[in-house]
């Protein structure tokens, strides 16, 4: 029987901040993981109007952005690196 959780690495957009996230439930969606990771990595969570900032996770092993509804257990393996990138506007 496989473990119920896995451990990952999350990087900020520049790759200069690297955070180990342990005990990620396999049944979580990527959206749930992102929500927790943004808050706990100290990333900016709201835009200038107070609206939630939009982030996506890129799985470096496959070179693709993950869909919010994908399941952690179906998509990620322990030790994977994902880059968390915002959709963000300069004025």
């Amino acid at each position, binding site marked *: 029987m496989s473990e119920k*959780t896995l451990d990952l*690495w999350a990087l*900020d*957009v*520049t*790759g*200069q*901040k*690297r*955070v*180990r*996230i*342990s*005990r*990620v*439930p396999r049944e*979580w969606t990527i959206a749930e993981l992102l929500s*927790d*990771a943004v808050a*706990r*990595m*100290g*990333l*900016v969570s709201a*835009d*200038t109007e107070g609206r939630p*900032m939009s*982030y*996506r996770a*890129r799985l470096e092993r496959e070179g693709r*952005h993950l869909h919010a509804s994908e399941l952690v257990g179906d998509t990620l393996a322990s030790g994977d690196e994902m*880059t968390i*990138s*915002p*959709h*963000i*506007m*300069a*004025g």
Partner: protein
Amino acid sequence: MSPPYRYTIRYSALDGRALGAIAVEPDFEPACAWAEFQGIRRGALPAVVPGEGSDVVPLWDPRDGPPWLAGVRIEPRARPAGASLAAEVSPAFFRPLAEAGSSLLVESGALEAGERYRYRVCAFPSDAPEPPAAGAAGLQFAEERRPLPLVSGSLDGFLTRSTAAAAPDPGDHPVFVHAAVLEQALDMARLSPEVETGGVLLGRLHRSAVPADVFLEITALVLTRHTEATSASFTFTPEAWADARRAVERRGAGELMVGFEHHHPHFCRRCPPARRPRCALRGPFLSQEDRLLQRACFPAPYQVALLVTDRGAGELLTTLYGWRAGLLVERGFHRLETPAAPEPVAA
């Protein structure tokens, strides 16, 4: 370790009437990282990030005392015996919070739109418990401590090959921008007079032995795909960031993503000519969105934002912004005319 504090901004009308108070949560993270970076520059702290953190200590108003603040002092926890690495954060740090809070007072009717006001910042010891070490579901987060990627470089050597493009503040880490990067940014602005342009800045951090300091060399401006531009905005999508990282890998020069560049078109072109000299949009400025982008993507103390401002009639200005004691401010830089041959890059 000093106790954590909670912060409140108290507003009053110009005639002294109390208008209300707003609780705020100051973002001290860039200021703390900046204070530790000053220690790294002087060789007083190991070049490892993140450091051991910093304490934020209130500086009480010398006349009125607690709870009235005159600023805060950032004290890195790791420091050699006898060394002071403290950095002071000025009252200006709280101004954006005060401005944001004033809009809430306008919404509540306590303040008229456009009405002038005074504000003071208070700090109170917080009784709030420390946040739990793990999330609700038991997730654990641990940031990896890594050496700051420094390559050796001679600050004097760079200075002899460059010209000051804007007067550097002696307290700032020196920044050298390759002339080709500046010309590329200016060319993009010329070619797109009505729509914003932009890209990601790449560079390297250098450790200079004599004089002892850390300085930044900006080596390239990467124009990524998957950006979205209008006459008043420039958007980096997640795909654009991935494109920038691929560019770093492709170049293979050990560069870091060290900031972003964008340009402001001539916003006043449709205004009556008589109004233009007084218009705040004619000069260089970072919008709230620009500042949020820098905070979200480039919060490290050595990271910068390059802006090209079109003032009309072919006049283009380049301005560099960087972190100073928690504030994102206009700062000086050097235009590097003759880049040296590539130096060995640390693994």
